[in-house]
């Protein structure tokens, strides 16, 4: 069952400027978590707000289940869409305590039902003892949980989450991610989740929608998006790829750091670019090598090395943390991915 169907959605804020969202289409299945990911200003938050009804689209349609939420001539205001939303700054009502915040969306229901629902949710997010507290007396993580509980309390047909963890510390963020994901799955909630953090996207999403400058570049599972990036941008954004130029030859692709024997659907002689990630390159010390170590970044578990090839291109590769090679050392870099790489025709 489809929980959300977005078709050719477009939105422009200031006439004369580029559209914030252009021709975006996707669907969300019941019980699925779709993550909208991309750099800041790419239109993912605007798309979310269009779905919520906080903005009106210029073109396109939005269907919630079978109901039309927005189309030419029709617009359902946010309060009638039955959507739950968790805001970036959690937006808890400061004048209401935790209990009342969560119960806010349950108005009109019989009080016994309200009480039960709120209790359930408090339990789920683990905040039972804090029911009477006010938002200002809660920590950041607690607030986010209350915001989630509030959004989920009316059993919405769709849950929207706008970078909910961005204000939290790293450790807390990781912990919250896990908790929230399992909670959402337990409730079989349909979710549209927005983040700029690709790692978070990869973790949270059943599917990812990668945005750039208002357009949807690729829609697919995390693996698809990561391994089979549809566009250069997606390849670069996911996994921080660098681009290595190469030429198609009968056996594969010839690059300055080696031959990549990967079948490619382009005529011999075509110039291409390979998206190379930090795990795709290997190197060893060689006084006659093709690159020089210019920096060593100690990441605890690994050492990441920045290598400058003689051609001027800088690539990254990692070694275990005990392998420490000095800056300035000449090394021989070699392409050694162990899996297919993303290949794109060379852009000029």
């Amino acid at each position, binding site marked *: 069952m489809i929980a959300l169907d977005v078709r050719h959605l477009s939105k422009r804020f200031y006439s004369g400027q580029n559209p914030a969202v252009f021709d975006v289409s996707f669907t969300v299945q019941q019980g699925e978590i779709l993550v909208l990911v991309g750099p800041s200003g790419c239109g993912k938050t605007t798309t979310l707000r269009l779905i919520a009804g906080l903005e*009106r689209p210029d073109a396109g349609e939005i269907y919630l289940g079978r109901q039309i939420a927005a189309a030419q001539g029709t617009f359902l205001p946010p*309060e009638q869409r039955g959507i739950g939303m968790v*805001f970036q700054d959690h*937006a808890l*009502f*400061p004048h209401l305590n935790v209990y009342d915040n969560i119960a806010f969306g349950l108005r009109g229901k019989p009080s016994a039902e309200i009480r039960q629902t709120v209790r359930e949710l408090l339990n789920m997010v683990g905040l039972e003892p804090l029911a009477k507290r006010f938002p200002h007396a809660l*920590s*950041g993580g607690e607030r986010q949980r209350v915001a989630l509980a509030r959004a989920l309390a*009316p059993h919405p047909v769709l849950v929207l989450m706008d970078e909910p963890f961005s204000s939290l510390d790293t450790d807390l963020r990781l912990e919250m991610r896990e908790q929230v994901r399992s909670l959402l799955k337990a409730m079989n909630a349909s979710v549209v989740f927005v983040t700029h953090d690709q790692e978070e996207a990869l973790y949270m999403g059943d599917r990812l929608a990668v945005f750039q400058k208002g357009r949807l570049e690729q829609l697919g599972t995390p693996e698809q998006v990561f391994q089979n990036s549809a566009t250069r941008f997606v390849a670069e954004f996911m996994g921080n790829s660098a681009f290595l130029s190469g030429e198609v030859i009968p056996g594969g692709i010839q690059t300055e750091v080696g031959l990549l024997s990967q079948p490619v659907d382009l005529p011999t002689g075509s110039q291409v670019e390979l998206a190379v990630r930090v795990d795709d390159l290997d190197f060893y010390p060689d006084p006659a090598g093709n690159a020089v170590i210019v920096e060593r970044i100690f990441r605890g578990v690994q050492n990441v090395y920045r290598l400058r090839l003689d051609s001027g291109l800088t690539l990254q590769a990692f070694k275990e943390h005990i392998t420490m090679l000095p800056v300035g050392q000449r090394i021989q870099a070699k392409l050694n991915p162990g899996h297919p790489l993303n290949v794109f025709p060379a852009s000029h």
Partner: protein
Amino acid sequence: MNRSDAPMPPALVSPLQRLRAASNRLTTRSAFPVLLAGLAGLVALFLAVPVVYIILRAVGADGEAWQRLLQARLWKLLGNTLLLMLAVTGGALVTGASMAWLTERSDLPGRKYFRWMFALPLAIPAYIGGIVHLALLRPRGGMLPRLLENLLGQPVYTPSPLGFWGAAFILILFTFPYVYLLSGAAFRSQHASLEEAARMLGYRPLRTFFSVALPAMRPGLLAGALLVALDILAEYGTVALLRYETFSSAIFVQLSGRYDRSAAAVLSGVLVGLAVIILWAELRSQGRARFTQMESSWRPAPTIRLGKWRIPALLVAGGVAFTSLLVPVGVLTTWSIQAVLDPETLRSVLHSGSMGFSNFAWNSLWTSFLAALLAITLSVPVALFSVRHPSRISRFIARVCQVGYAIPGVVIALSLVLLVNRALPFLYATPLIVVIAYVLRHVPQAVRASEAALNQVSPTLEEAARVSGRTPVQAFVQVTFPLILPGLLAGGALVFLTSLKELPATLLLRPAGFDTLAVRVWVWASDGFYVQAAPAALFLVLISAVPLSFLLRREQIFK
């Protein structure tokens, strides 16, 4: 930073979040809020009509009236008014900022008490202060010269409160609290790191003050200065009492003298023009006069030791508090006691025509209260429109609503008299016209307070309410309104306070037998019956102190 798990104090939002919220706010809502814009527009219209009318009258006035005025008085009045404005603004700035520095940054003994003493003169209308000082210091006749003469056996020269210097002195005494409060808050929120950085770079403390602290306060000081300037422009009672002619008092005299209102309209037109210029400057500077956000890394700037300057500082601070607060209150109390003890005086205090003291007090209270209520109610749609839906139109409407600030009470009264009599005669000579004058003059304060209150409430709260199933109106009533209510109440208290003190418009517009306390004091005092005026004056000051202390308690420095 390890902030997230520690409970955060209220209203602390990281700059990043603020930025995001702000950028969200700035994107225009696609659905233009027609109803809201309509309401706000109506309010602006209501406020603008008297002003436009007076300008039309001024422009359309007989060329002869212009000529006569230009020849005789206009330049002199202009010079007088500007000179007074400069002197008082300068004096208020110096006094207010230096007193604020003393109470917020130095180790002045008794700081806690001084804070209240420097803020309380706001409860004393300047003309009442003028009355007291006039009675005390009037050359040859004042209480002080006579006392000195009796003591020393020969006439002693004491500075006269009359004329330019006297008027400037009195006005500085009773307007410096504006600057004091603004600077006090600015001083208090200054980061230690600012000055520490300067010190590390080799700046000595005094130079640090001038190069770092003062410039950081500049927006706030500028705002305070312009407020004072606008106040002086509108000032009538004090300058009339102390016999220094400015535009406002000249207009009043014109109204009392001539049978033809044109000359008054002409003067008013010029006055309005002058005020609008100042208002424009003030609105421009307002955008920058935000208090620095107190971030979680905030540490209070270190207290400066006065050392050998302790005694002189104490004397100066004491002197300011003495002349601006203790003397007026003390003298008023003494006179009031005198008045109450003398049955003859008491009788005339209590009655005028058929009206008694309780009538005056009641009149003051209910007109000011109604004005506050109306002003706040009218300000809400305007503030909502300009804060939540910023656009050229909303900014324009908000600006128009600020115009009342620039229009002195005399001019508002004049335009109301002319307008209402022709258009709404049933309204004329009812107390309601007085309330309307108050509202016209004070809606700007209310709009500012409402805008400030709204700015504190993130729009995502309203969005969260919308998403939770509330219509826009419900979202406002259930979420926004409870949160801005304290700010609205503060705005109301401010309007209440300033309406209580209002004099020139009330004098001109009141129907027969309807006197407020302010008018009563004025009528008695202008006939020389100071002792009789004292109980009403004292009562006025006391009831003004109530909303004032409510307002002050919201300021950090009084918690």
